[in-house]
């Protein structure tokens, strides 16, 4: 299963690309509109891209009334990414969006590096959302958590159905001559190839901690089928594409076919059979 990482594709400007995915993950919605951060918002670094968008979005009401109906016209599985500054914010969005049959999954963005973090703990937010919605809830976690596996088991106990691993890492790029930060907000989210081993480690340890019983969307620097297969072997049940989509509109189809080939080359009939291959078998 190949998805996009939230915030890395707009299905309304590029429906053909969205349709080449198994599900479309919308950009994070917050209760109120957010204008996003000041320019500049992007800077390339060695091995990755730094962004500081700041969860720009039209807010829940406009999204619900104007954007969601257009996304529904795509007639494909929709995942909606949910943000906020406290548990009540997240719950409010989950309750409202969760009532739509068209929405398959609510992904809780518990880890945006470009906004001030929610004061509430991840498990508290998940529990508040679980109380108001029966939809599958995926918790998107930061790779900077000191013990991501502990947080992962906490959110699962609180009612999360799955995990999205990982969001970007905090990074800084300086101008080569002035030595000032390239981004207006100085620090931004670092994604791309450099995130790959970080994402693999997060997926690996969360798969182990949840004993392979929880669906995991692996993401971070996936550019090829082999990168996707690595995440699946570490424990991912689905893979999301992020910054690769910016320069390669054919990436979903390419990664999917490369993934099948790479899995077959290693004796797996289907990529899903490789899930957890990086782990020793669990003791019975």
């Amino acid at each position, binding site marked *: 299963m190949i998805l996009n990482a939230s915030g890395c594709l707009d299905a309304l400007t590029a429906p053909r690309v969205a349709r080449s995915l198994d599900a479309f993950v919308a*950009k994070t919605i917050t209760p109120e509109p957010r204008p996003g951060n000041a320019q500049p918002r992007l800077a390339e670094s060695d091995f990755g891209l730094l962004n500081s968008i700041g969860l720009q979005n039209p807010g829940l009401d406009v999204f619900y009334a104007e954007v969601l109906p257009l996304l529904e016209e795509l007639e494909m599985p929709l995942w909606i990414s949910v943000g906020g500054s406290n548990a009540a914010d997240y719950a409010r969005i989950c309750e409202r969006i969760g009532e739509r049959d068209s929405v398959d999954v609510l992904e809780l963005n518990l880890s945006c590096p470009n906004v001030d973090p929610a004061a509430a703990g991840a498990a508290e937010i998940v529990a508040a959302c679980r109380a108001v919605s029966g939809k599958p809830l995926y918790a998107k976690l930061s790779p900077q958590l000191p013990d991501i596996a502990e947080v992962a088991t906490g959110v699962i106990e609180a009612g999360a159905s799955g995990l999205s691993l990982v969001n970007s890492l905090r990074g800084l790029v300086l101008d080569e001559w002035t030595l000032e930060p390239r981004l207006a907000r100085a620090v931004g989210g670092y994604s791309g190839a450099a995130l790959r081993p970080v994402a693999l480690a997060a997926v690996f340890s969360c798969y182990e901690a949840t004993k392979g019983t929880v669906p995991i969307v692996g993401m971070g620097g996936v550019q090829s089928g082999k990168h996707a297969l690595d995440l699946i072997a570490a424990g991912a049940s689905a893979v999301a594409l992020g910054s690769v989509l910016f320069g390669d*509109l054919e990436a979903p189809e390419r990664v999917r076919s490369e993934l099948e080939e790479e899995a077959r080359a290693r004796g797996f009939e289907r990529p899903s059979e490789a899930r957890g291959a990086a782990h020793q078998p669990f003791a019975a």
Partner: protein
Amino acid sequence: MASPRRESRRISGSERIGMYTLLRLERGGLEPGLPGQFFMLDVPGHIVPRPFSICLAEKGELAFLVNPVGPATRELCELKRGQTIGLFGPLGNGFRTDVERPLLVGGGIGIAPFPYAAQIMGNPPIVLGFRTRRQAEAAKLIPRAEVCIEPQLVTELIPEGPIDVLACGPEPMLHAVRALAPDAQLAWEAPMACGFGACYGCVVEFEGKSRRLCVEGPVLNGRPPVLPLIDDQEEEEAGS
């Protein structure tokens, strides 16, 4: 309007023009689009492509004016004839060129869309401003243009009276142009990772609203956006 296409193209020439480089590519079946529209050019070894206005669209060729401001643009300037690069476009919204009393106003690298615009519009009046004499060498791309160098500002060359301004240049220049010609069509610039509305990197505030320059611009006050950009229809057209 031409649908954007992603293609690989051979470099047919690369020439220094003052501090800029004019990168010429074989056009093949690519449509140049409208003046003010842009292409995303892949840069070998870099993760995301970079946006460039279409500068010239002579027979069989597309040309882009590159300002070497960082590692990626410096590498583009070093590419040699015969090498191949990927590009994607035309993207964004271009200038309305069917205006009655046109005046083209360019500042610095903001001259980039105007050689092509001048060709399409039948040599309208053009004023160009540059910081340095070396930058100003780019004015040879538009031989009939009136040119000034700082401390004189390009806005001093804008005549009074009713005119339809098409402008491209640094943000302070665009604000100054707008103060003189409130209905001016302005081409803005911001870092961009995708060119098709995905990354929200190129958002600017204009008339109280956030605009993604890649889909609603780069020319604001120009043509209305045409969405969606990348649809199934495009495949059918490309395949026909």
